[in-house]
């Protein structure tokens, strides 16, 4: 993928990500909502599980999988995780969805990296992306490991009742 298209796409997606988090943070803040009732499932009593989906978010969940099946998808809870990190609560973030950590990292690092490349006329991010794609293509073991992590997290999401 060309440098220009890649940078434009990632900047657009980062903007969407930031906008989404900011929107949720602002809306939740102004409403002053209570965490509300917590629910769970056998083995994971309510006191150790997550806020019900509707409590901290303003809109019903945007996840198409959840809308279709009622079960959480592997990334359900990531927005709440990011909001928790913004509030300075990494434990809560990990409980919502550990994917919040790489997501936060990506939202912070990628736009900065791309802007740095654009200002200095470099292509560090573009080359790093190329190397990552090459590794994923040539060593299926890596892609399978990622898939395994995603599926395990998914199972945890379902158990937690995210």
């Amino acid at each position, binding site marked *: 993928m060309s440098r220009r298209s890649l940078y434009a*796409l990632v900047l657009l*997606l980062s903007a*969407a990500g930031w906008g*989404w988090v900011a929107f949720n943070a602002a809306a939740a803040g102004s409403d002053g909502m209570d965490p509300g009732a917590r629910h769970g499932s056998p083995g994971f009593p309510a006191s150790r599980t997550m806020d019900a989906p509707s409590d901290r978010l303003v809109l019903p969940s945007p996840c198409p999988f959840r809308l279709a099946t009622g079960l959480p*998808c592997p990334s359900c809870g990531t927005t709440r995780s990011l909001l928790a990190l913004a509030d300075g609560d990494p434990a809560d973030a990990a409980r919502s969805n550990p*994917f919040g950590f790489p997501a936060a990292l990506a939202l912070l690092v990628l736009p900065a990296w791309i802007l740095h490349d654009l200002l200095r006329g470099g292509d560090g991010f573009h080359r790093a*992306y190329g190397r990552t794609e090459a590794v*994923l293509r040539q060593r299926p073991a890596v892609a399978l490991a990622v898939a395994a992590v*995603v599926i395990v997290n998914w199972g945890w999401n379902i158990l937690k009742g995210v």
Partner: protein
Amino acid sequence: MDQQKVDMFLMNFGKYFEGYQLTQIRDRLLQLDESKFVMLQAANLKDPTITLIISIVGGSLGIDRFFIGDTGLGIAKLLTCGGLGVWTIVDWFLIMGRTREVNAQRLQQVFF
């Protein structure tokens, strides 16, 4: 490669590439030797129209990106639920061009 075979290839796969690339591709194919003809078939080119359909139907799961070999982006798209829907829509417009780009790259690998 003889002209008949080249023309047959272009008739079948012309839409898989950007229009402006076709003259260049035709010239390279004519210079290519016969033994590479088999490799051409194995180049694993993807039909942009099929990719677009996959994008419309399963775009929020990133299946379109996986299909054309953009595995990393596919995983990212999957994990962000189609980039919060934004990416899903953006890809409806980008994916055909990207597929043609990928096809051109795969064809280059056959030429060398």
